[in-house]
């Protein structure tokens, strides 16, 4: 689908704080209580509207485990926004925020918008980190702050969209160089002024792959007529 801008986001934070659940709630509007450990990076995407403009959010959900830190570090590059997530029911995930923030500041571009998120706000009875503490941390480090619940969907939309609004404002103010893809922003094919010159990147072929429906009819395969059966990994 056509968009005016594409923003790349990255979600970071300790393992088990609900990064993948936030992504799933935002992209699919559903909650999955049991989620496999992310062992690398997973992607999601959704279209939103800001100021009447279609904006595509491309979201990179990273593994939180320490052992994957060296792999996920390179994914900060080219991100326009980051959601830094902790779990309000686990004090240690809040204590690790400084390390995450240092990592993010060191490996991303300086204009990256960072949203601090205290997740699992539905588990009030097990709260270990006060909302005020999150607010204070955010104020101290110049972050936006929200408490969310990936389970009840509370504030999830707002978290992603408010970050996008902040990025959008920075574009309007000229803070972001939108012609440099390393800033995590791409101009879409339907952008009024620059469409013809700036879409030569990866968008074109990928869009083509997305809309080509020939696959169904041209897929050529053997079946029992020829006596060959293909198993999709059932035989381990």
């Amino acid at each position, binding site marked *: 689908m056509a968009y005016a801008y594409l923003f790349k986001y990255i979600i970071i934070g300790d393992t088990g704080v609900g990064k993948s659940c936030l992504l799933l709630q935002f992209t699919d509007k559903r909650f999955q209580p049991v989620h496999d450990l992310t062992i690398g990076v997973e992607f999601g995407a959704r279209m939103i509207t800001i100021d009447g403009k279609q904006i595509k959010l491309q979201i990179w959900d990273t593994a939180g485990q320490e052992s994957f830190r060296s792999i996920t570090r390179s994914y900060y590059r080219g991100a326009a926004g980051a959601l830094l997530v902790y779990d309000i029911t686990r004090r240690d995930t809040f204590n690790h925020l400084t390390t995450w923030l240092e990592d993010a500041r060191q490996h991303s571009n300086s204009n990256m918008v960072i949203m601090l998120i205290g997740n699992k706000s539905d588990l009030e009875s097990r709260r270990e980190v006060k909302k005020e503490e999150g607010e204070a941390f955010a104020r101290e480090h110049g972050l936006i702050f929200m408490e969310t619940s990936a389970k009840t969907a509370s504030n999830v939309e707002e978290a992603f969209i408010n970050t996008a609004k902040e990025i959008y404002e920075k574009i309007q103010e000229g803070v972001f160089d939108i012609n440099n893809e390393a800033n995590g922003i791409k101009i879409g094919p339907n952008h009024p002024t620059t469409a013809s010159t700036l879409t030569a990147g990866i968008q074109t072929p990928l869009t083509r*792959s997305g809309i080509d429906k020939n696959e169904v009819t041209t897929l050529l395969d053997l079946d029992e007529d020829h006596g060959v059966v*293909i*198993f999709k990994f*059932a035989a381990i």
Partner: protein
Amino acid sequence: MLTRVKSAVANFMGGMMAGGSNGDHPGGSDLPLRFPYSRPEFLGLSPDEIECSADHIARPILILKETKRLPWSTGYAEVINAGKSTLNEDQACCEVLVVKRRPAGNSTPNRTPTARRRSSLPNGDGLNIKDYQDSTEDLTFHYWALFDGHAGSGAAVVASRLLHHHIALHLQEVMEILCAPNLQPPTCLGEEPINHLLTPTSQRALTRAASLRGAAGAPGSPNPTPTRFFTEKKVSHESLVIGAIENAFKDMDVQIEKEKAVYNISGGCTALVVVFLQGKLYVGNAGDSRAIIIRAGEVIPVSAEFTPESERQRLQFLAYMQPHLLGNEFTHLEFPRRVQRKEVGKRMLYRDFTMSGWAYKTIDDDDLKFPLIYGEGKKARVLATIGVTRGLGDHNLKVHDSNIYIKPFLSCCPEVKVYPLTQCEHGADDVLVMGTDGLWDVLSNQEVAEAVTCFLANCDPDDQHRYTMAAQDLVMRARGVLKDRGWRISNDRLGSGDDISVYIIPLMYGNKQI
């Protein structure tokens, strides 16, 4: 892989190419794609995820999703290049195939399979394999393949979708023989029943005695054997499988050539396949990808690369025999460097197709032509164009700004090596590593073996993701991290800016299979 390349998208009707200006569509072909560009099917990526995967700035390492599983818990990881091509030109395929006896009445195998994929086959669990495996006459094989495309992604995509079907078809032709391991493969089909039992020595002795007597068969023998007056080469079952894989590569190449008449199939690709059949691993390689086995920490190479340097003598001999293939612009001789005009008449070091060493010859005018093979190591090129000498596709590839075709010098024939898997014991950390050249350009066999062995030793042995995480780690080590001066790996060496794809296949499952 390609320099000075013009990937001519040819008007292939009638097999005629009408000169350099005709048949070239700089902006690509008007023909439809044979298959849309995608990433390997088993990754199960959405169009949005494919878009993310093509990020040349952050270069995300893609792995198998947590919910998916490959046969034998095989690990897989890949990463896109640092910008040399818009798309990731590597492709991969992994399948378990069951070959069933060809239905009666369909005696000639259909060489171009045209049936539709069974949509009823789901993508993962829930499939009841027992229904199919109950028949002892079926032939099951496991298949892993990597393809490294150049000058476009078309050939690699097509080969990743279709090569295994060709292998299945060729195995089907000999499956009765393969399913009777105690019977010598008959030299000529249809002449005599398959009755040369190898194991019961008494009968073999009897047969041999009968042959020696020149009789039509031993009196009273239940299976009279026809007379043989000459010795016959014994052909093993193993070499029938090798032949099936070799012919499958050839058919795949022919199919790409034919279908270019109606589809846009760009470029060419290398192909590295591993087939596990009846307890043995068959490793077929056409190109510069590589497979090694790591057993008890030791490296066992199971493939060899085909490059301008490794195939120099074959290529020089071909050019010597067919000089017109050089278009009067190249010389088949090799010199340590370009010959200069002022050196004509002097004596210079050279090599011909008959030589692995060097000698001196007197330089003449012919030697001023560009050498057929030029450059060293990864920069070596055939006809100043291509750095890999075996693979599929490339039918329209020509030397830049000329009418000289590259394809006659390229071979689609794989070298197939056999590893008798079930004859060896394998632990959980004994694996086969397959990788495209993006991996091996920057890491040696030994470095790969050490990295994998070390990684697996630190994993929970029961973690089913351990091989995928090991593959991710390996790709990470070859890609490196982005520093001020580009992608860097250990010891501040340059990381690979190429597409990198890696399988890590644990071998112990092969021992369990039998």
